[in-house]
């Protein structure tokens, strides 16, 4: 896969200048409910961080805090050197669990949506989205509506939409949770390749330990509510990884054991 020339605007700031994302002592509660209590987390530039944890541990809240869709009640969130919510939003591209495709737009229009929201003209945005369809295996589906696409294809369109504005940090919120097991495995390999060709700082939230270990450079394990990081596991294998080798790899098996231990 070649680089996406369509997105030259912002590359991850070069390594050595400190982390791309830094959370320090972050607290967030909803009414009497404490979602996050004293969360510390760094994500290096160009690093893929997997975040796993039990349901309701504040994983999605964590993403929205990084992405500037919420503000912390305490602590600091710094993304690419900025702290304001609006500035954080401008540095991050967010991809929700459900694809969020608009049913009245064709695939090309959906892929171009985020660009249009940034003020790029409709025709220009579509022209920039077009080359990605070939690259991501969706050639000839540019003019299909979301309802005519399979779940995996829809997630790929959603990923293109996330990628196109060229923002340095990608926030992926359980991107494959809604897919069946076979499609999910395909999409994980696909994402691994896409991220190898298109290096970005990534925070990948998932409830699937296997998925996190397969895709990430490092996996943060969160505790049940109130959420905090209870373990951080480095995955010392180069990306993209081979799925069949990953199943039997002794290093990954050991990491899986430790992650499940930490989740208990």
């Amino acid at each position, binding site marked *: 896969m070649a680089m996406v020339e369509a997105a030259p605007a912002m590359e991850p700031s070069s390594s050595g200048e400190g982390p791309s994302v830094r959370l320090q002592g972050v607290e967030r509660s909803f009414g009497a409910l404490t979602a996050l209590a004293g969360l510390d987390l760094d994500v290096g530039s160009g690093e893929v961080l997997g975040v796993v944890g039990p349901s309701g541990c504040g994983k999605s809240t964590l993403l929205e805090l990084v992405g*500037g869709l919420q503000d912390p009640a305490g602590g600091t969130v710094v993304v690419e050197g900025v702290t304001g919510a609006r500035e954080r939003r401008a540095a991050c591209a967010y991809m929700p669990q*459900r694809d969020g495709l608009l049913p009245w737009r064709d695939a090309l229009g959906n892929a171009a949506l985020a660009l249009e929201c940034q003020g790029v003209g409709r025709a220009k945005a579509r022209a920039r989205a077009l080359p990605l369809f070939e690259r991501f295996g969706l050639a000839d589906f540019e003019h299909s509506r979301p309802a005519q696409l399979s779940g995996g294809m829809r997630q790929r369109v959603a990923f293109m939409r996330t990628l196109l504005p060229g923002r340095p940090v990608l926030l992926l919120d359980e991107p494959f949770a809604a897919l069946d097991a076979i499609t999910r495995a395909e999409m994980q390999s696909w994402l691994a390749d896409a991220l190898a060709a298109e290096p970005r700082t990534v925070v990948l939230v998932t409830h699937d330990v296997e998925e996190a270990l397969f895709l990430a450079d490092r996996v943060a394990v969160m505790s049940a509510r109130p959420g905090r990081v209870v373990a951080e596991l480095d995955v010392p294998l180069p990306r993209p990884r081979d799925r069949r080798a990953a199943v039997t790899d002794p290093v990954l098996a050991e990491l899986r054991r430790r992650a499940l231990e930490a989740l208990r």
Partner: protein
Amino acid sequence: MRRSALAGALLVGFVAVWAWVASWGSVDDLTLASPGQTWHALRANRSLLLDNAWVTLYEVLLGLAISIVAGAAFALAMHLSRPLRDAAYPLLVASQAVPIVVLAPIFVLAFDYGIGPKLAIVALICFFPITVNVLDGLRSVDPEQLKLMRSFGASRLRTLRSLELPAALPSFFSGLRVAATVSVIGAVFGEWAGADRGLGRLVLMDNNQLATPRAYAGIVLLTLMAVALFALAGLAERIACPWNHTPERTT
């Protein structure tokens, strides 16, 4: 195909029962015209009925157009301004609770005998379903989608244009279908309160002059008009919102 066959059978059944009841000796011809008499009246008075039908159709379409513009604009304003929504919603409901039959003569006093009172009544009746449905459509947008638009850095206007307005389109057409069916009733009320032309006025006059078959012919035409408008609104929805009708892919 089966559905339209069933609908046809029901219609035939209805006409058969109508003919049967009309054939009873105890039913006066002046109270109930038979289907045959109605058909005859339709043919015999064709040009008179059509001339008056055009007048009524014109009132209905113009009144509907006014209610679409006003209703959609009002719904949009209520959607964009929370205080306006809270303040205006009770008024909106009240506008529908007003007994139109009583209001019609007052409108005639206010607007004179011309087309004004008819338009006002049609628009008033149709305003409610359109406003309520458009507002519901605008407000039913998935909060996740709104969050996504915010993460893209979309402006309020962009979110409205790219997300909320298209999402509200099917609801608008639901409202329009309801409005289309009641619009004809509105025009008839308007004509009853005072008019010199129109199908509603003709039916009222025929009733008074005991020209029962022609009154029935007028009623049939009014009903056909409402049904046709309903069908047209449905057709417009299929053309404007094709995504609501594409079959899902199964794989």
